[in-house]
């Protein structure tokens, strides 16, 4: 399933770039992150509670930075494994200056395999959309704070 969109952010491109390319920063923006550790510059791991199934599924997500062209493009892949579900997500975003602010074009290709993938098909899309909105909302808040300070 591929979801994409653009988001206008009230902060200079540099600010946005710095936030979304810092794993620890991003970890704070993602919902349900319970623990987080950086392996090296391009790999990090997070224990996440994904709202799949009732009460959420605990998953270990391994992130890998695939490509980055500061300050406008970056893409990463996240593979998650939890009981009943395997998640494979590739996300990318392109930043362009828009006056004072920044315009972010993003895309995410989310694949979920396993029983949950089969059972929960009809709810995956709404869940993914909602997660994305939460991340974007948090990001907007985060960068506006940064740019104010």
């Amino acid at each position, binding site marked *: 399933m591929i979801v994409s969109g653009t988001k206008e952010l009230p902060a200079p491109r540099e600010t946005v770039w710095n936030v979304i390319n810092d794993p620890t920063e991003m970890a704070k923006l993602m919902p349900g992150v319970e623990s987080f550790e950086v392996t090296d510059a391009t790999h990090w791991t997070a224990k996440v509670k994904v*709202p799949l199934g009732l009460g959420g599924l605990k998953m270990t997500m391994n992130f890998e930075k695939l490509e980055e062209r500061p300050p406008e493009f970056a893409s990463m892949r996240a593979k998650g494994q939890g009981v*009943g579900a395997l998640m494979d997500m590739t996300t990318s975003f392109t930043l362009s200056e828009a006056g004072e602010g920044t315009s972010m074009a993003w895309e995410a290709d989310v694949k979920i395999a396993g029983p949950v993938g089969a059972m929960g098909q*009809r709810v995956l899309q709404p869940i993914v959309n909602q997660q994305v909105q939460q991340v974007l909302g948090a990001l907007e808040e985060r960068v506006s704070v940064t740019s104010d300070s």
Partner: protein
Amino acid sequence: MLLREVEYVRPATVEEAVSLLGSYEGARALAGGQTLVNVMKARAAAPDVLVDLADLEELRAIGFSADGLLEIGAMVTYAQLVGSSEVEVARPILAEVAATIADVQVRNRGTVGGNVCVADPTNHLPPLLLALDATFTIRGPESERTVSADEFFVGVYMTAVSEGELLTKVSVPPSSGAGDGFAGLTIGKHGTYVANAAATVSDEGGVRIALGCVDAVPVRASAMEERLAGGDLSAEAVAAAAEGLGASLDPPSDAHGSGDFRRHLAEVSAVRAVLQAASRRKAA
């Protein structure tokens, strides 16, 4: 079929239930279990502790509040709704819809609280209770709070009931002249909904419409409601008011229909629900 290891406890009072839910990590309330046990069988969910609400008699009551609201305990079963004289008098649509949920065995166990707390986008009651402008009473360790249907449904499988809290009752205003309608497409008779809509038309002609299965939470069809505010509820007017409703939605696709099909069904269901509601209201 085979659940993960889980701990079980059956408290005797609501207070005890709430404190149990608050004091154990990964604790979850077990109502009728007609969804939760199923999901646990698939191991798509694995709470650490099940707090069985079976003995909480006060949650099994149907009655009226001082200000005349129909109060339905969270542990009231669908079968109870179907057979309740209070419901029959105050808001018969609740019984009518409950009677089409799954089958006799499920209706004997499944509860109102379970249905709304599971908050599966295809469930019957969330859009209906949103259309009926129901309120939800949530008990926490210290206090009790009441939230509206618009605030209650937060996401797929997520509601305003946070960890350590318990939904105790759902309050529904009596129809007092209003007419209610419910329509949609199911997978087989009394099966899972592909798309549905609930509507209520007050005796003054005010319309509330809620759509199910088209988003993470039930959605109000506000634009359509406004277009109908004029009071013309003829088939033509309602059909016209529904135009563009689908286009405003981004429903999921699955084995039973594309997003486009659900957009279309949302319009069809909304129209049918409104017309049914209009035909049932007591003329002002």
